[in-house]
């Protein structure tokens, strides 16, 4: 693992894999999201309770998963940066933030639209919704730190430590529906007792999730490549440790 990290912490080597991967990821994500949308909107059945409203799930749930996954990635990269000081990992973490903000906002927005017809309200302050809103604010904080420090390595450490501290919110979000009673329903997929979603609905859900994941990887690879090239040309905006 360590040796693997060492090998690819080298930007030149990183770019040599990133470039061919980028194109494949971009095309795959476009294709999978299109197929997923067709399944989600036309071929999947309505729900026994919620009828057609359930189709919001195919955007809401993958977006929420991505927000958590991207944050976990940012946290992990920040820890690697803090311990081993590989600059590439800080670049990876920083370039993931904007996509994370967008996915988190989408999850909150679609969740709110889904809440009105099913629960009868756009928003409540229950544990799941509140902890997810906190995730959004932490993302905004990371974005702010990333954009405000241009000539100091202090910004890098502020970023990495905030990313690390915010990581504690992830298990709270995941288990909020089990630890406290909430308006939000408990987990349907990763839970004791197995999956409680019928297969016809799982297919579009996983298709959309895979499509979103590839889209994230594509955007990340493109932004990291731009970042590295700018750095090489010497007009990089953010400086990463001396």
């Amino acid at each position: 693992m360590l040796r693997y990290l060492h090998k690819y912490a080298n930007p030149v080597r990183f770019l040599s894999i990133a470039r061919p991967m980028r194109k494949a990821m971009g095309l795959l994500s476009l294709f999978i999201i299109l197929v997923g949308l067709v399944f989600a909107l036309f071929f999947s059945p309505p729900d026994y309770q919620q009828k057609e409203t359930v189709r919001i799930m195919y955007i809401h749930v993958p977006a929420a998963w991505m927000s958590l996954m991207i944050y976990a990635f940012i946290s992990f990269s920040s820890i690697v940066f803090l311990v081993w000081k590989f600059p590439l990992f800080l670049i990876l973490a920083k370039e993931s933030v904007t996509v994370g903000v967008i996915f988190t906002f989408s999850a909150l927005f679609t969740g709110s639209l889904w809440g009105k017809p099913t629960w009868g309200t756009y928003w409540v302050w229950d544990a799941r919704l509140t902890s997810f809103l906190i995730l959004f604010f932490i993302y905004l904080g990371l974005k702010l730190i990333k954009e405000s420090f241009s000539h100091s390595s202090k910004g890098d450490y502020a970023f990495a430590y905030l990313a690390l501290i915010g990581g504690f919110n992830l298990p709270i979000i995941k288990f909020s529906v089990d630890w406290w009673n909430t308006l939000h329903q408990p987990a349907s997929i990763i839970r004791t007792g197995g999956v409680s979603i019928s297969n016809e609905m799982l297919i579009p859900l996983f298709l959309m999730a895979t499509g979103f994941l590839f889209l994230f990887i594509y955007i990340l690879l493109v932004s990291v490549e731009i970042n590295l090239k700018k750095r090489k040309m010497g007009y990089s905006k953010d400086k990463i440790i001396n």
Partner: protein
Amino acid sequence: MKLKYKRFNFLIIFILAIASTIFFVLKALEEKIVFFYSPTEILNKDVKLNDTIRVGGLVVDNSIVYDNGGLEVFFAITDEKNSLNISYKGILPDLFREGQGIVAEGNIDTAKNIFLAQKVLAKHDENYMPPEIEKMIRN
């Protein structure tokens, strides 16, 4: 000691400190974080007349009665141990029905032993399936 291990140990202590802080804060706030109380908790609790609280439970079968030309609704919720009568004036969410989990916000009238709801929200469970499969399971 190598600098790398020094930084690593520092991070471990840092993480443990933050984790325990968060744990104790959440533990202390447990009462406030829960979104609603069950009817049993309401019975065992010292709830004052004017406190706005939320109760949650399943709507009892055959307990829904409409009054005042359908404007006012009375029903009971249960947590399988105790039940609580609720009165509500207003628009109910689409998912409101017998056996459904709901959350009502309002205050309890201790004299009448009835909960006066200002807002009724419907919960839905973690099961997602097409209507045909649900019918098959029920039969």
